[in-house]
């Protein structure tokens, strides 16, 4: 009986957990700049479902591609630029959240390897309903301005 129970449980564990109907597209990151150990990840989240989904965090624990990942927003106010963490980001049904240069972005700390254009880096978004795997394509920096 124990054995019979083990297989379905294992199967359940390897299935990607569902993060509502949140879809990720256009996930990309330019390589790190000289002397720095952090990168910024950009993507678009689309809520295809009928209830709001809230992103509550980000991690790279599974792939270990980064030491730490967090959701940040760049803010421009009174001529000053600063960044602040975004502990919760809610995407309403039918809506999108665009992570774009100069705004929302994933802070990707200490990449494990030296990423180059063409590589893929894996991170996971945590939401109020589960997790969402994100494959970031490493792109040439000039492709960011489109």
């Amino acid at each position, binding site marked *: 009986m124990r054995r019979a129970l083990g297989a379905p449980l294992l199967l359940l564990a390897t299935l990607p957990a569902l993060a509502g109907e949140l879809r990720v597209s256009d996930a990309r990151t*330019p390589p790190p*700049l*000289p*002397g*720095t150990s*952090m*990168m*910024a990840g950009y993507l678009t989240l689309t809520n295809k479902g009928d209830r709001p989904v809230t992103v509550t965090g980000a991690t790279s624990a599974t792939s270990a591609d980064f030491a730490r990942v967090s959701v*940040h927003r*760049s803010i*421009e106010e009174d*001529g*000053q*630029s*600063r*960044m602040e963490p975004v502990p919760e980001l809610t995407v309403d049904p039918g809506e999108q959240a665009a992570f774009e*240069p*100069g705004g929302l*972005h994933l*802070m*990707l*700390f200490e990449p494990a390897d030296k990423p180059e254009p063409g590589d893929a880096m894996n991170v996971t978004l945590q939401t109020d309903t589960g997790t969402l795997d994100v494959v970031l394509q490493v792109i040439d*920096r*000039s492709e*960011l*301005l489109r």
Partner: protein
Amino acid sequence: MPARSGLLLASMVFIAAAGVGLWAGIHWLAPTPEERRAELQRTVDATVLPRDYARLPNTAVHTAQGEPMREALGGGWSVLFLGFTHCPDVCPLTLQTLAATMDKWSSEEPRPKVAFVSVDPRRDTPADAGAYAARFDPEFLGASGEMAALRTLADRLRVDFEVPDAAADEQYGVEHPSQIFLLDPQGRLRAVFSPPFGPDTLARDLRTLIANLEPAA
């Protein structure tokens, strides 16, 4: 003879009056520097500064090559941006936009110099700032200096920055000015651009300003 001298006097008075009239015409009808500035202001998406321009201070902010920044930028128009190298989003975006802007200058045209100044001297040396800036365009200069020198520079540009009290190996963020500064060949602040920046608008406005702002005014 009295008739002649009378005529001479009349001519002299006439010439003097014409001179005064001409001078007055130029003086009153020609646009004043302030009117020219206001006119220019209408054509560009930047703040064109009025007279009493702030000049780059002669403080110890050095380029990666060890040259004082004021000297490195002198003699031609230049563009300045203040940030830090551990800035993953806004600084790369601004420098990438500036690189795309400068690509619009042909190799024959004199193009403004571009300098990136790190206001995070705890983590960035001038060489760090230089390597970072050159990644966007090999011609871009990087500079930094002691905190006090950077503070003097920011004060002169009438902007602010804030480096948190954290160890160099902590992943801290720095609050820095978001603007791009245009300096004339004398190193004086003439115009300020505010985000969002686009290469087309930036290139157009930089050309307009450089062509129309009088370097000696």
